[in-house]
Every structure is written in C-alpha cells, then in structure tokens.
C-alpha cells in the first residue's frame, strides 16, 4: 500500500484542516479563553504543517510511487490476503452474535488457512482445535462472555 510522499503529505494537510474545522463549534471557557478546542487545534495546525513539508519533499523527489502501486495492487496476492484478514474481522463482527464464537471463529480460521494454501482437512482440524482452545482460555479461564449463538454451551 505504498503511495507517494506527496499524497501522504496532502492527506495529512487535509486531515489537519478537517480536524480544525471540527473544533469550530466547541465552546470556549469562561472569559473567552480556549477550552476543549485548544489542543486539537494545535495538533491540527502542526499536522497540516508537517504534512505540507512531507508533500513538498515528495514533489522535490519526484516520487512517482503511486503510479506503480495502484496499477498492480489488485493483482498482488499479498494484498488480496490482507483483504481476507479484514473480511475475517468483519465476519466476526457481523456473524458472531448469530452463529456464536465457536462457529464464527472456526469459519474465519478455516477460510484464512485455506487462502494460505493449507490443505483443507488440516485447515479444518486446526481451525476447530484452535477455536476450542481459545474459547477455553477466554470463556472458561478469564470468564469472558463470548457469544454462544447457535451452540448453547
């Protein structure tokens, strides 16, 4: 996910501006002294300043990284693997309450290991075993109320 320093710098300048704008509605303290807005505004200003310097440095170095990176990004299996990781986390958030931790955890592990070329049988066995171990550690030892879902134990 490498992009040019110019884009990174511009992104931070924009971010700083957004943060500053968000503080415009914050109330001042008694006597008109700055209150909740002070620190975020200092941070926003410095962020825009540092971002600007990074952007200028990127322009001077004629950094053309983003031209190469974007074109090849979706052809990169490593990037696709990373998307699978994020999808795994997203799957937990959306499915865990319905399916429960044991089923969701097993599913996420199995899909990720399958994606990384682990043979399906081994992936299935390891996914089940690992999920049961993690469940035992957190739910039984640390007494974390993991969602039961379709399995009631």
């Amino acid at each position, binding site marked *: *996910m*490498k*992009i040019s*320093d110019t884009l*990174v710098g511009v992104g*931070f300048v924009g971010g700083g501006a957004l*943060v500053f704008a*968000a*503080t415009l509605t*914050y*109330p001042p*303290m008694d006597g008109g*002294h700055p*209150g*909740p807005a*002070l*620190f*975020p505004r200092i*941070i*926003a200003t*410095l*962020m825009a300043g*540092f*971002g600007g*310097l*990074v952007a200028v*440095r990127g322009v001077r170095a004629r950094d053309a990284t983003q031209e190469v990176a974007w074109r090849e990004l979706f052809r*990169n299996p*490593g990037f696709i*693997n*990373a998307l*699978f*990781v*994020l999808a*795994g*986390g*997203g799957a*937990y*958030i959306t499915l*865990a*309450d319905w399916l429960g*931790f044991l089923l969701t*955890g097993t599913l*996420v*592990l199995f899909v*990720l*290991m399958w994606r*990384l*070329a*682990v043979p399906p049988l081994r992936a299935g066995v*390891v*996914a089940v075993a*690992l*999920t049961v171990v*993690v469940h035992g550690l*957190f739910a039984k030892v*640390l007494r*974390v*109320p*993991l969602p039961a879902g379709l399995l009631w134990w």
Partner: protein
Amino acid sequence: MLASWKVLAVIAVCSAYGLFVGAIPGLTATMAAALLLPFTFFMDPLPALVAMVTMSAMAIFAGDIPAALVRIPGTPSSAAYTDDSYALMKQGKAELVLGVDVVTSAIGGLFGAVVLMIAAPLLAEVALRFTSFEYFWLAALGLSATVMIASTAPLKAGLALLVGLLFSTVGVDITLGYPRFTFGVTELLNGVNFIPAMIGLFGVSEVLRNMGSARLNLPVATVRAEAIFRGVARTLWRYKVNMARSGVVGVFVGILPGAGADIAAWIAYAISRRFSREPEKFGKGAIEPIVDAGTANNACLAGDWVPALVFGIPGDSITAIVIGVLFMKGLRPGPMVFEQQPQLIYAVYISFIIANLLMVPLGYLAIKASSTMLRVPRNILMPAILLFCIVGSFAINNSPFDVGLMLAMGILGYFFEANGIPVAPIVLGMVLGPILEQNFMVSMIKTNWDVIQFFSRPAALILGFLTIATWLIPLAPIFRARGAPAT
C-alpha cells in the same frame, strides 16, 4: 509477594511466550506486549507488571536467534548485528554467536536492573517536588525526543505522534466535559479504547503485513545445543570493556523517552565500530559488535522503566503500553507509587533480576528448540494470531465496536508502516497526550493564562530549555554550515 504460585506461573508462561514470539521473525516484542494486554487486563497490577517485564526481557534476547540462523531479526533490537551473526553462522560458529547472545543479554539486563534500582528512587525524591509545570515540560520533552532524537525520519515520526495525540483528545475533555470527536458514538465517550487500539496497531498490522509476504516458510540451520557455551567466557573476557560501555549506553538510551532497545543496539554498534581495532570486520562476521549491541539492547529495557516508574513517561513503546494498562487499573505511575505502593516497584526490580537470571537456562532451551520454532508454519500461525487479536479486543468490554476499532487501527498501522511512518510514536502520543494537555490546562488556569510562569521554577526552566533545544536539533546543520570557514 513474587513467591506465590500464581506469579511464578506467570513468570514461566510469559518467559516461554516471550521466547517464542521473539524468535519468530515478523512478531515483535511490542506486538507480544499488545497481545498480552487482554490477559493483563484481568490480572492484578503486580502479576501484570511481572508478565510484561519477563516477556519483554525474553523477547529481546530471542530475536537474536533467527538473526543468526536465517538472517532475519526476530525483533528490531537484533537488526543491528544480524549481518555479523549470520556471517559467523555461515563460518560454522552459530553456537558461539548464540552463546554470546544469551550471556550478554543476561549481563546487560542485570546491569540495567541494578541501575534501575539505584536511579529510580533517587529520581522519585526529585519528582515529588514536581508541579504541573514540570510535568508538562517533561511530557513535551519526551514527545520531542521521540521525534527528533529517537527517529530516523523526524517528519513522519512527528506525524505519527500527532495522530496519537489526536486520538488522546477523543472523548470528554478535562476542562468543560465537552465530548470531542465522538460523532455521537457512546463507546467513544471514554476515549479511544487503549487495548484494542494497541492490538490493532501492533498485532493486526503485523498479520496484514505477514499475510502479504511472499515467503511464508523459512529454511533453517540446525544448532548443536551442547556447544553453545564453548568459548563464550574467553570471548566475553576479551571484550569486557565493551560490555561495560554498552551497558551504560543501553541504560542511558532507555532512560530517554521514546528510545527503545533497537536504538540502543544501533548506537552501541556504532560506538563499537568507532573504538574497535578491527572495524573493517564489522558486517562481515565480527563477534565484537554482537557483544556490544547484545548487551546494550537488554540493558535498555530496564532503563526504559526509569522514566516510566518515576514520572509516568514511557521509555519505549512497551512501557507505554504498560502505563496505559496501569491507568486503566486506576494506578498512576509516578513518585507517589514509591511511597504508597512500593510493592509494585519492588516487583518490577525483582522481575528483572529473575528474568535475566532465568534467561541463560531458558535461552539455552530456546536455542535448542529454535529449529522447531522457526519451522512453525506461518500460514497457520498468522490466522491463529488474528483470532487472538479479535477475542482479545472483544474481551475488554464485550463489545464488537472494539473489534471494529482494532481492525481500523490495524489498517492504519499497516498503511503507516508501508509508507515509512513509524507506528510506535502513536502509542506515545496516546499515553502522553492526556498528561500533556491536563498539565498544560491546569498550569494555564492556575496562573490565569500567564505563559511566562511555565519558566518560573528552576526545574521547569531547565526542562523547558531542553525541550526547546530538542526542537532546534534539525536546524543544527544549518548553523554548522554558516559557522564553517569559507574555502
């Protein structure tokens, strides 16, 4: 207090955990600390501190193992001498390298622990007299040092620090109780939850990076464990001055806020080359830099705890994580802890001593098992780590929101590292931000917004001067060029 079976079990388990994580390339000591967080959250403060100290000491040593065997440092603190370690392994001296690694790590760690035990109480006496002015400048100095001194890319480190400071402003502000950057989300009223954020930044981002790597399994050399300590005593006696010097370097770097074991190792390596009689051998299979840097990085660990215990200012990202956990338990590291809860301080001291004494026998076992550890299939390890990250984040508040926060932080960490923006300053910003803002606002309010008062006390004046001097470091080359005589 450390003799209870519970604490001894924590030491044993965390030693094994630290050795395992440190020995696997791609899994850093900071990541190990982040993954340990959910467990320490459920522990009492004393075993939580013992767990972190033991784990980090073992992990920093264990990073030397893959550095020698596969030329990939297990943790960044081993990067400085990876080339020398691997070259010596190719010459058939893997056992000597690993033996020197484990013994210098133990010696460096013990030296650092002794300095910690002497320096911390002395500094605590000074810190008792500190007011909001001194604490403000101390936090500012820590943040400035992180960016200007401890980083090779100050601009980008500064950006990361500012992101961390911004995260620290999320939630209810300390002056008017006004909600900042919560966007109507109830879970954000108490701020960005520290544990899922750390797990995301250091755990999930590493998983994303490793899953994106083409090389998932590593070819590994085998080590003859029975020969590990052969020749070590002779080597260390030959370089005894180096060890003493590097121990001092490591501790001083550790005391500097934001500078961790990796910085200590590089500085010790550079000093070693500067004073060596055979500098041309460095990088090609010299044992001397391994002695120096191996001592310095473990000595630095104890040094990191000096500002953390005395002032609540983290010395590195691991102590930043520990301080965050202590805050969550309602404990505020600082001089009052020395008076009100000295058992926690003694627990840190004794943990360092025990961990470094155990390092030699446990390190021997880790070296013996290194071939097996390094062959753990990463295509199983990475999904397993992700599951731990998900459950660890969920466990804090039983909230899926925290899992989402973890993922968002993971993406942020992954993107930052891919673009050369270090992630560690984010942690420092999140931990020091509240200290900085609170002490600034308290100082301003009590002096009726008179900024001059920030320099009114001698200690505040010195700390303020040091902070401003740190900001001027980037301008030093300009002044030097102007001062140079024309040719």
